[in-house]
């Protein structure tokens, strides 16, 4: 799966993004750092309002210029800082080197254009191909994403496709120019469970064939387990924990991650009640000065309300921003289901950690 020495394709450093609204400045992203390596799938997980969509749109430069501002930080791709590029320069990258798939397939396609036209558009734009070549490639793509009778489908309009098929078309469009990075913003949330599985299979498959790196944004941990190599957990505009899939699922360190994992219904769980994290995400107009999760965290310490925790290293690939990892912090008992996971982890790894 993941080899540490793989090439880094995208590096986000200390990204801070704010929105200027009538009510004031909403600090949506407050110091986000992560890397994306070639060929890997990084999942970004979090609730609504955690900042995951904003992060992905900022990579593409799709945030509305009128009220958004990158206050600090950089997004490094192919030696350039994407936050500093003009729109014209970004246009050359979008669709070609970095592509995106959106959440709702019913609204992602232009209803008055044939899907054929919509697929060849990026090809014609970025690859100097002739119309015939573009069409050929489009037909290939349609087959690649599993749409039968591509010749016929090419001339049809979006309303003639079902939801799952439309999402396949959107994926085809995204992969048309073999992008280096594919950003999938909750691509399966709006689909039926069975279709979800198909789309995920498709993406994993295509990733192997085309060697794209994928940033997969979702709030659904089940999907993450299926698809991701590494996971970043976002809360209150910050990444609170990041690590490989195994590390996050079986050795989580941040109370928020514990909460997320506990609220996943599981056949193994001994607990009767379904756990839910009480409360609501913090108001980013006046972000809390300490750990953003403190107010909802039953394990919070006084310092959680005073200072933001730094990112503690748990392993070469695993980091968590929680004061619980400070040497002075008391030992806490994570919820039962989490402890179970840790036991499994330790059994497999011969153990790294806390009990």
């Amino acid at each position, binding site marked *: 799966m993941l080899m540490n020495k793989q090439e880094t394709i995208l590096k986000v450093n200390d990204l801070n993004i704010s929105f200027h609204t009538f009510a004031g400045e909403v600090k949506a992203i407050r110091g986000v750092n992560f890397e994306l390596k070639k060929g890997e799938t990084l999942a970004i997980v979090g609730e609504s309002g955690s900042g995951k969509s904003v992060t992905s749109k900022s990579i593409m430069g799709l945030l509305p210029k009128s009220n958004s501002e990158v206050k600090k930080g950089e997004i490094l791709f192919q030696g350039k800082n994407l936050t500093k590029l003009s729109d014209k320069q970004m246009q050359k990258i979008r669709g070609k080197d970095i592509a995106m798939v959106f959440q709702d397939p019913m609204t992602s396609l232009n209803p008055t254009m044939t899907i054929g036209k919509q697929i060849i558009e990026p090809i014609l734009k970025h690859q100097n191909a002739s119309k015939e070549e573009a069409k050929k490639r489009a037909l290939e793509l349609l087959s690649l994403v599993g749409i039968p009778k591509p010749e016929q489908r090419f001339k049809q309009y979006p309303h003639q496709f079902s939801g799952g098929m439309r999402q396949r078309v959107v994926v085809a469009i995204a992969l048309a120019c073999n992008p280096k990075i594919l950003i999938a913003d909750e691509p399966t949330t709006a689909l039926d469970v069975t279709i979800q599985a198909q789309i995920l299979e498709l993406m994993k498959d295509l990733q192997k064939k085309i060697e794209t790196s994928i940033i997969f944004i979702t709030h659904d941990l089940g999907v993450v387990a299926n698809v991701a190599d590494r996971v970043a957990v976002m809360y209150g505009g910050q990444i609170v924990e990041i690590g490989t899939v195994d590390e996050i699922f079986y050795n989580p360190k941040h109370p928020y991650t514990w909460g997320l994992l506990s609220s996943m219904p599981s056949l193994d769980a001994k607990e009767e009640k379904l756990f839910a994290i009480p*409360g609501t995400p913090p108001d980013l107009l006046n972000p809390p000065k300490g750990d953003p999760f403190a107010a909802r965290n039953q394990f919070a310490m006084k310092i959680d309300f005073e200072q933001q925790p730094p990112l503690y290293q748990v392993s070469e690939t695993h980091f968590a921003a929680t004061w619980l990892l400070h040497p002075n912090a008391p030992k806490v008992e994570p919820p039962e289901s989490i402890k179970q996971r840790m036991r499994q982890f330790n059994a497999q790894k011969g153990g790294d950690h806390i009990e």
Partner: protein
Amino acid sequence: MKQQEENIDKSLFEPAGVDTLSAEKIEKPSLNYWQDAWLRIKKNKAAVVSMVILFLIVFMALVGPLISGKDFSTQTTSEANLPPRIQGLEHVSFLPFTGERTLKNGDVVNPYEQKGIEHYYWFGTDNLGRDLFTRVWKGTQISLLIAVVAAVIDLIIGVAYGAISGYFGGKIDNAMQRILEVLMGIPNLIVVILMILVLKPGIIPIIIALSITGWISMARVVRAQVMKLKEQEYVLAARTLGLSNFKIIFKHMLPNLTGVMIINTMFTIPSAIFFEAFLSFIGLGLQEPQASLGTLIEDGFKSMIAFPYQMVYPAIIISVIMIVFNLVADGVRDALDPKMKD
């Protein structure tokens, strides 16, 4: 990635005793629908300014004829066609209230002085020597009256029709909608003109003619809203409790319809004012000596070239009323429409 080496006070690592239940409370105060709408409308500067102007105009329409000291129908032919003159402003040469007029050959004369007239006509007089200031505001009164009454009738008929059609649905709705479709296919203009021809011009006939066609848009809008509300659960709850259909429509749905009713009425009024003025302009308006903005413009138009002020003042007033109503109506609609994001 970094291990903190700082000396952080050990006491800070004590549990903070977070009561997770208190985390459930909601921060922002909750506003009801009307408070929310009021906040939104206040932000719309154009609408606010327009509302102020509207109040002023309505005020003047009521008070204007009283303060001028003159009557709207008294004819003094010896004082016909006098230009506007206002005490105190008569020597301000760039304002048009000096009592002077420019003849075709460029001469400037002051008919007041020429004829030895002492009193002042603030907007001048028409060709029969009637005070235009009084007539203009009286006319505004009448135009507004006609428009408001017509709008209220439209409201009553439209709401009733739309609510019944939307609430009962099925065959009743189908039939009522077919009728409506046919009615919509008939241009209002034609019906209005024909009605006036039959009933002969006058305040009541004009109101009737305007109401006959105006209720249609209200009916459609109300029906759409009722159909939306019908799906809501509280209607089902009321039904289950045994509430009669009539009561459901009135007690539960009506309050939720006020939004669309207000919006639609705000747009109906300027439309009625326009129609009335239009009818007057083509000769189907009120008869002498009654004045409405439309008849005043019509009269003024006839002598527009020689005495432009006779048309200009009523024209300005009607234009301002229409603009202001439309801006307020737009503002109200934007404020009451829940689809608006903040």
